[in-house]
Structures are given as structure tokens and as C-alpha cells.
């Protein structure tokens, strides 16, 4: 793929939890419209890295720059940035006290992005996109895992983000529901969304990713196209990991 504009620039990112170094000096660039899949063993810092990108984790050092705005600068309004950076969680995190429609309408209306009518229209469009337009009145506990995750994706899309972060979106799902969620994500990728995906779905990485990053012990050890990383891994630890999961 021809690299377009740099959407996210990560410079020398460090994250410590107390004495534990979770991320060590990570530098990376993510381009507009690119799908980057991060793989690696558990505990390697993949999720922490992703959560730093919208500052759910405060960084210990280094900089994260999205569209020219430095997230680590105290003067940056992080809430404004988060409006444009959607996040999908492993455990869905739908608001349990609201039905599907209100889950989708809450943020756009509360943050005055649009009127109630427009938010509802948007919500209906997004639900249709994920194939759940008939469940608007359901509460989260009435949905299956796959449905919950599709609603969660729709909820993020209602804010009209230009970047989407996925934190192991299929890891908490029953196997037969993984497909429906991945299908929605593939469609998003086709539509040109900039996506950063932490996942154990190697098939998805192969099929959809423009670039694969392999992380281990808080560093990016290898990166390249899926063909390069899966077909001819250079780093012994990448080889070892791929041998175990493939």
C-alpha cells in the first residue's frame, strides 16, 4: 500500500506500572486508511499500547501525535480527540442501564455533536450497517455476545470517528459469533477507516491488515505486510510465537 498521510505518530512511548515496564520506547507511524494489526503473546503490552492511543492509559514518557495534535501535551483537550478515536473493547462495555438506541445516542447528543433527531437517524444507519436495526429497544443483557460487540462498534461509529481502535474484539466471544464481528470490521476496513486492531485472529490479520506489528515484552520486534510477517518472519521470537498459534 502506498503510505498516505501519517494519522498517528508514536515517538519513544514508554509506560510503566510502578516498577514494571510495560512499554519500552515504542516508535511507530500509522497512516490514514491503514489497517494495522498488532499480534503478540499475552502480557506483551499490546492492549496497553492501544489504550495509550486514546489516553485511557496515561503515558510515562514519549509522545503520541494524532493529526498533528500531541496527546501528551496537557493543553490538549483529550475529550475532543476521543470523539474522533473510537474504541471497541474485549468485554463490549455497553451501558447496562440503557437500551441499544440510547447507548448509541448518548454521546452524540450529550456532547452536542448533533440534534436528537439526527442522532437517532445516525444510530439507525449504524445499526443497519451492523445488521441489528430490529434490536433498538433491547437491553444489553438481552443480546448475545456477537450482537453486543456489533452494537458497541455501531456506538463508536455514531461519533463519526476517523480512527477505530479494537482491543481484542473477538476474544470474549463464543466461536460461532466471531465471524459476524469480523465481517463488520472487514467492511469498515474496506470503507477506508484507519484501524488499529489487537487480536489473536491470525486469519483476519492475513486477510485485512495492511501491516502487522509483532510485539513482545513491551517492544515492537517485527513489522511488515502480512505476507512478510506470516510468510517469512525474521525475528526468532516471532517465529516461535507463530509456530504456537498457527
Amino acid at each position, binding site marked *: 500500500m502506498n503510505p498516505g498521510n501519517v494519522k498517528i505518530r508514536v515517538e519513544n512511548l514508554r509506560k510503566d506500572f510502578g516498577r514494571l515496564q510495560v512499554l519500552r520506547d515504542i516508535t511507530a507511524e500509522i497512516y490514514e486508511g491503514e489497517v494495522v494489526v498488532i499480534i503478540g503473546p499475552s502480557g506483551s503490552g499490546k492492549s496497553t499500547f492501544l489504550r495509550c492511543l486514546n489516553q*485511557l492509559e496515561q503515558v510515562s514518557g514519549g509522545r503520541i501525535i494524532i493529526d498533528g495534535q500531541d496527546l501528551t501535551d496537557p493543553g490538549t483537550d483529550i*475529550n475532543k480527540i*476521543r470523539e474522533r478515536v473510537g474504541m471497541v473493547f474485549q468485554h463490549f462495555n455497553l*451501558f447496562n442501564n440503557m437500551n441499544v438506541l440510547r447507548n448509541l445516542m448518548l454521546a452524540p447528543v450529550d456532547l452536542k455533536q448533533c440534534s436528537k433527531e439526527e442522532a437517532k437517524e445516525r444510530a439507525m444507519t449504524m445499526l443497519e450497517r451492523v445488521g441489528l436495526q430490529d434490536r433498538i429497544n433491547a437491553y444489553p443483557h438481552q443480546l448475545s455476545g456477537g450482537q453486543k460487540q456489533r452494537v458497541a462498534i455501531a456506538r463508536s461509529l455514531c461519533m463519526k470517528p476517523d480512527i477505530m481502535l479494537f482491543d481484542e474484539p473477538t476474544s470474549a466471544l463464543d466461536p460461532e459469533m466471531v465471524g459476524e464481528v469480523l465481517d463488520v470490521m472487514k467492511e469498515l476496513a474496506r470503507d477506508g477507516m484507519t484501524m488499529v486492531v489487537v487480536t489473536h485472529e491470525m486469519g483476519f490479520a492475513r486477510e485485512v491488515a495492511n501491516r502487522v506489528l509483532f510485539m513482545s515484552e513491551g517492544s515492537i520486534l517485527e513489522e511488515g505486510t502480512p505476507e512478510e510477517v506470516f510468510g517469512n518472519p525474521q525475528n526468532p521470537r516471532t517465529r516461535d510465537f507463530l509456530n504456537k498459534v498457527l
Partner: protein
Amino acid sequence: MIQIFQKYGPLLMTAMGQTLLLALYGLFFACIIGLIVGIMSVLNNKVCRGIALVFVNLIRGVPMIVLAYFIFFGVPFLFNTILKIGSVTLTALQAGSICLALNCGAYMAEIIRAGIQSVDIGQMEAARSLGLPYWRAMQRVVLPQAIRTMIPSIINQFIITLKDTSILSVIGFPELVNTAKNVVAATFLSFQTWGIVAIMYLIVILLLQWAAKVLERRLKYESR
């Protein structure tokens, strides 16, 4: 018993009114204190958490009767005699309300803290990730879910506080127990008088419990 009630009924009913008035004032301010201190104890700010912790432990560590004496006699004495600044007087109602508010407020704070912490952290993170500021997320997503789990404990605390008003008979507030003491002193019919008082408390608390059940049912999600 009936004769006693016929003769002293109006007096005891007035006293019950005073008890309820005291409880109402106390609970009202206790809710405010509880909400503020409860939220302070879940904030990311060490100073706020410290203040909340000290307040809760201080109040929980002192018997309410001591707190009542301290506020009613001790605090005016401090201002008037020790510091010699102005003449501070507290009525028994004021001192009693403060005492109940502080005591009940400390326990309410613990209930509210536990309620907020029982809501999965992911709820807050999801709301923040959409761009909602902390307080909006708290107000729209976390607190509504927390309140649902808190209601039974809050009702329980209300009942305890209502009964605790009887402790304030020691500072001379004319609530039910204090008045009943006077009735016994005048008639020597302690079995009958205390029997009537017990039944009066019981009725009020049963009514409160019934109202709580109705409220609890209303607050459940439409779908459940």
C-alpha cells in the same frame, strides 16, 4: 394501654412528629454529606480520598451519644468559654440534626463508595472513550447503575437513623423516647407506655419499608 393512649395519645403523636422532623433534617443533610464524601473517596485525587477516609473513620469510631453530647454541649463551650468568641447556642433540634447528618452521612458515604465501585470499570472507560468528560460519564452511566445496587442499603441506613433519633433524647430534644419518659414518670405505667412507643416506631418503620419496596420496583429496568 388504651386508656394511656387515650390520655397521652396526642402528646405521643406530637412527639412522633418531632422524631420524624429530626430524622428528616438529619437524613436530608446526610444524603448530601454521603454523596459528596462518597464521591470524594472514589476520585483519583489523594487529598480528596484522604479527607473522606478521615471523616468516615472519625465518625464511625465515635459512639453517637458521645457525638451528640460533644456537639450540643462541647462545641458551644469551645466558642463561648474557651475561645471566648461570640455566644454560640445550638437548639436541641439543630444539634440533633447535625449529629444525625454526620453519623448517617459517614455510613451513607461508605454505601455510595461501595456502590460506585461495584460498577464495572469498563462502563466508565467506554463512556470516556466516546469523549464524555469524567463527570458526565459519572452522571449518565456510572451513578444510575450504582444507585440501583445501593437502594437496599440506603433504606436500611434510613431505618437505622430513624431509630437512632431516640439517642438524641439525651440532649433534651422532645422526641418520642424523651416524651415517653415523662409520661412514665407521671403515670408509673411503664409496660403500657413503652409498649405503645414500640408499636408506634414499628408502624412507621413498616410503612417506610413498604414505600422502599415500591420505589425499588419502580427503579428496576423496564425490561427486567
